[in-house]
């Protein structure tokens, strides 16, 4: 069993009195306190076209468990983004549900239903005039 800890800190002056979130989680397998112990490692994609691509996440992940996916747009350009979607199949043009846009520097950590119908993750850059680099990692059972 591995111990994986993910912490989030959000600090904002969006109100005069400030706003903050601090939360830590230890990634555990479904229905237990046993730590998640599988990963596909840290992947990197350099995307030079606006064509959508399916991320190579963990093909051996079991569906309906406690899997997590981390994705980050490693760039710094806040005028361009990569659109992240959930996909019904391994065909990148078969997007069923857009999640949202990761602009330069933006990151996401989400629970993941794992591969299968509607659960592939697709990335589509907004520009072909510069290379969009994303990094991603899966934590799964």
């Amino acid at each position, binding site marked *: 069993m*591995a*111990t*994986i*800890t*993910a*912490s*989030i*800190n*959000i*600090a*904002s*002056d*969006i*109100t005069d009195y400030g*706003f903050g*979130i601090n*939360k830590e*989680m*230890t990634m*555990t397998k*479904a*229905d*237990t*306190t046993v730590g998640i*112990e599988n*990963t596909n*490692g*840290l992947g990197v994609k350099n995307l030079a076209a606006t064509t959508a691509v399916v991320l190579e996440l963990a093909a051996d992940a079991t569906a*309906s*468990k*406690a*899997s997590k996916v*981390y994705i*980050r747009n490693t760039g710094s350009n*806040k*005028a361009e*983004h990569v*659109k*992240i979607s*959930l996909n019904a199949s391994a065909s990148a043009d078969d997007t069923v*549900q*857009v*999640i*949202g*846009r*990761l*602009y330069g*520097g*933006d*990151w*996401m*950590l*989400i*629970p*993941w*239903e*794992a591969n299968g119908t*509607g*659960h592939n993750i697709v990335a589509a850059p907004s520009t072909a005039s510069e290379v969009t680099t994303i990094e991603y*990692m899966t934590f799964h059972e």
Partner: protein
Amino acid sequence: MATTTATLSIVSPDLLPSSPLSISASSTLMKADTSVGLHMMESGSGELTVTASNGGVVLKEATAAGENTAAKVYICNKATDPTYYIQVKLHDTIMGRLYAGDWMFMPWSQGAGTQEDEISVEAEGGTCPYEWAIFKEGETMVARTA
């Protein structure tokens, strides 16, 4: 302009056989296509109970004003029983399960107009206290009718 910074740390001393894992990421949350900070926020908390039909509840509806923006969503399951989880959906698509103590943070581009895109949550196993926050761009307020 507001400044909202979201920072992530993922560490593990023993997930990888060869070396400790350490991932750090930090982002200042901006409006779409700009370097102007997101300046609206909504947050809340509550309890999700398991129901017979258990279709879940809508945490947040997408809006036309929010379409293709750079909103971000945080959700946390504050239950302590490891068998209790919150299933998170984008419209009819299951995203995944937040088990007790789990949190998530994601962009949300609200594809209203061309796509139903609401975020819904449903408890499984038992009652799950939860909290959420959304950081987003401004909205045009609805004019009062006489």
